């Protein structure tokens, strides 16, 4: 079953069309890698899914619910956008951790704020806070950061910061976890530790969309790959076929760089 359907998304900035008629489906439990050169629209596509940009046209459907339809303003109400965003998690290229909070506090903050909106928060406050803390510690341990929970972001390496950011995104249990070039800001020796945890998530069948420049990683970890070029999906298919046997001249040129 497709957990995510994207239909005919278009987006332009000023007068430049950066996404043209983008459509794809993502089955539950699969990892989709999006590759392509800089400026091909990969990041804009992820930002549209996370409501950081508003597409000019098209529909986004998550679990059979139309969460965005360009022609229907009732799907774009500010008050609903917050809830709809939570279908997605987003891990940024530059981590964007909150510098004044420890690793653990970074993972807990959004959960705590959301918990305050629960009806039973006042009565079960202690229990809820305890569960959030235990869950957050478990997530950090899963990211091999159990001993870094009390560290502030500036005391962590880039690879560690990015793993905290992944734990922070996972904490809200998104249906689809998106990665926007998660290793592009990292030194080569730190790339591996981040790719390792993403690989582990793929093995657990976390539904993911990964924008990446790591071709070997995309081939290994993703089920399917989308190759974007100048705002369109130039080629898509099973990961190994796309990388090993590119059909279009553009993709051949891109992969041979």
């Amino acid at each position, binding site marked *: 079953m497709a957990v995510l359907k994207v239909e005919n998304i278009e987006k332009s900035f000023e007068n430049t069309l950066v996404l043209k008629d983008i459509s794809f489906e993502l089955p539950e439990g699969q990892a989709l890698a999006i590759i392509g050169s800089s400026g091909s629209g990969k990041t804009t596509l992820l930002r549209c899914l*996370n*409501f*950081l940009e508003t597409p000019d046209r098209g529909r986004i459907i998550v679990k059979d619910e139309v969460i965005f339809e360009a022609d229907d303003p009732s799907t774009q109400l500010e008050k609903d956008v*917050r*809830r709809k*965003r*939570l279908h*997605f*998690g*987003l891990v*940024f290229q*530059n981590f*964007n*951790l*909150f*510098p*004044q*909070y420890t690793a653990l506090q970074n993972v807990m*903050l*959004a959960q705590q*704020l*959301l918990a305050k909106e629960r009806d039973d928060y006042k009565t079960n406050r202690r229990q809820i806070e305890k569960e959030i803390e235990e869950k957050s510690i478990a997530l950090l341990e899963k990211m091999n950061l159990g001993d870094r929970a009390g560290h*502030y*972001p*500036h005391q962590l390496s880039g690879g560690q910061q990015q793993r905290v950011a992944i734990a*922070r*995104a996972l904490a*809200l249990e998104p249906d689809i976890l998106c990665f926007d070039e998660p290793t592009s800001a990292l030194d080569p020796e730190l790339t591996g530790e981040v790719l390792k945890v993403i690989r582990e998530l793929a093995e657990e069948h976390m539904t993911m969309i990964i924008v990446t420049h790591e071709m070997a990683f995309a081939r290994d970890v993703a089920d399917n790959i989308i190759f974007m070029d100048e705002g369109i999906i130039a080629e898509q298919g099973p990961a190994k076929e796309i990388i090993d046997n590119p059909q279009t001249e553009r993709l051949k040129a891109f992969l041979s760089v």
Partner: protein
Amino acid sequence: MALISEQFPVVFQSLNIGFLQTLKLFFVTLLGALPLGLIISFGSMTKFKPVQWLTRFIVWVVRGTPLMIQLLIIYYFPGLVMHNTIWGGGEDGRFIAACVAFIFNYACYFSEIYRGGIQSIPVGQDEAGLVLGMTKSQIFFKVKLLQMIKRIVPPISNEIITLVKDTSLARIIALQELIWAGQAFLKGSHGISGAIWPLFFTAVYYLAFTGILTVLLGRLEKKLEYFR
């Protein structure tokens, strides 16, 4: 020198009373200008253009004219135009007028510092908050405010130190603050006249007070060093 030691107790008492008025003006100004500055900074950042232009125009005028002139205009203008001062008479009236002028003037300077502080926080902090389902006010208060405070402590400290000394400008509307008290001994006060040393001696008060503030603000800066 024997003369000074004889005069000292009388002068000291008189200067202390003046200094109390200086302190009152200083703290009331801070209490008013720190929050008002935040409101003005929101005005100068709003997407609603008329409000933005008006706010920036006011900030330009206030920062572009001497505080001494602003004091004179705010204190005398209502009386000259309406033939009835709105500030009330005497020292209390002068104090209220001085507070209004100082609060408004410093709020405008603070607003530009706040604006710089808010705008210097990377947009990624907003976006990270948004994708985590936070509201705009949660993002401001839980994520950005402390980062902003950390960034603005040094420039705000500068303004606060300047404010200590700027309070002496209230002398121009005869507010009986520290300079006024020191100067009084030139013309004659408490049986002492022609003495200029009390006026010079006021500098010690300013220096001591800014010294204390420098230490306190330095501690605040240090406290916020736990993150980057």
